[in-house]
């Protein structure tokens, strides 16, 4: 009986989603604001990647909210896992990983760090940005946690990096507020389109976001592996 009811419910939901999706004309710009971003985004922000120009310029304040959400999530994981249980320094026997995993992870770690940094430094030119680069950096640290048990990221330095990066974002936004009467106003010169040093404050903010996301996700992994 329950299975029949759930099947009927699923069919109704699927029909509703199909009906509502059928009316959306995919590929045809419906909103004017999207057209405006595509046509004017490059000149106004100086970033060749339109996604970046929307994420960090037109909707920069929302990005601050996203960063805050990630920060609160990392804080919650840390709080739940470190409170409520006594931190006994149990001396577990650390089993060494196999030499293939060890060597492979040690080989991949610097390359992944380089790719992640490249992605968030070139966020205004090529696809990708702070969130993607930060996630790749965190997966590089995940490889180290997998291959060398017992080795940990220095918590003090990772927290300093995270706080400094968040501070840079907010201070840049406030300077923009002081100069241009709006939060995250692009007060630096835009430079020539398509070069590394262009688009004003966008690359600086993306580097800050990349470092912040990378250290936060690494902190979540560190908490999950070491403290639980």
């Amino acid at each position, binding site marked *: 009986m329950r299975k029949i009811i759930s099947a009927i419910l699923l069919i109704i939901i699927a029909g509703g989603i199909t009906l509502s999706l059928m009316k959306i004309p995919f590929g045809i710009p419906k909103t004017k604001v999207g057209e405006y971003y595509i046509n004017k985004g490059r000149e106004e922000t100086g970033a060749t990647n339109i996604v970046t120009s929307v994420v960090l310029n037109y909707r920069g304040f929302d990005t601050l909210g996203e960063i805050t959400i990630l920060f609160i999530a990392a804080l919650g994981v840390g709080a739940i896992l470190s409170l409520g249980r006594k931190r006994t320094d149990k001396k577990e026997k650390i089993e060494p990983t196999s030499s293939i995993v060890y060597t492979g992870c040690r080989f991949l770690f610097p390359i992944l760090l380089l790719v992640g940094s490249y992605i968030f430094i070139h966020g205004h030119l090529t696809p990708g940005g702070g969130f993607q680069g930060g*996630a790749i950096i965190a997966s590089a640290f995940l490889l180290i946690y997998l291959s060398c048990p017992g080795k940990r990221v220095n918590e003090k330095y990772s927290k300093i990096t995270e706080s400094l990066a968040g501070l840079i974002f907010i201070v840049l936004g406030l300077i923009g507020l002081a100069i241009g009467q709006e939060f995250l106003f692009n007060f630096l010169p835009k430079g020539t389109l398509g070069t590394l040093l262009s688009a004003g404050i966008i690359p600086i903010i993306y580097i800050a976001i990349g470092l912040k996301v990378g250290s936060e996700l690494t902190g979540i992994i560190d908490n999950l592996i070491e403290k*639980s």
Partner: protein
Amino acid sequence: MIIIVSILIFLMLVSAIIAAVLKDLLSAVIALCVVSLIAAVLFYLLQAPDVAMAEAAIGAALVTAIFVIAIRKTKRFEE
């Protein structure tokens, strides 16, 4: 193009169903990882490389790792 996308969506559906049905949680997590990977490829084919990168890095790598860590600390098989 549309054939490739259809095949990928079909594979994605199959691995999603496998992830829901399996009793072995570790295999289910790997099936979920396959769903994320195919979603990343689909995003790339539909010309959204930014989202594809985020999906590949977060959905396929970090979420899988977090699930595997959680399974290691709890039980592997569902009752």
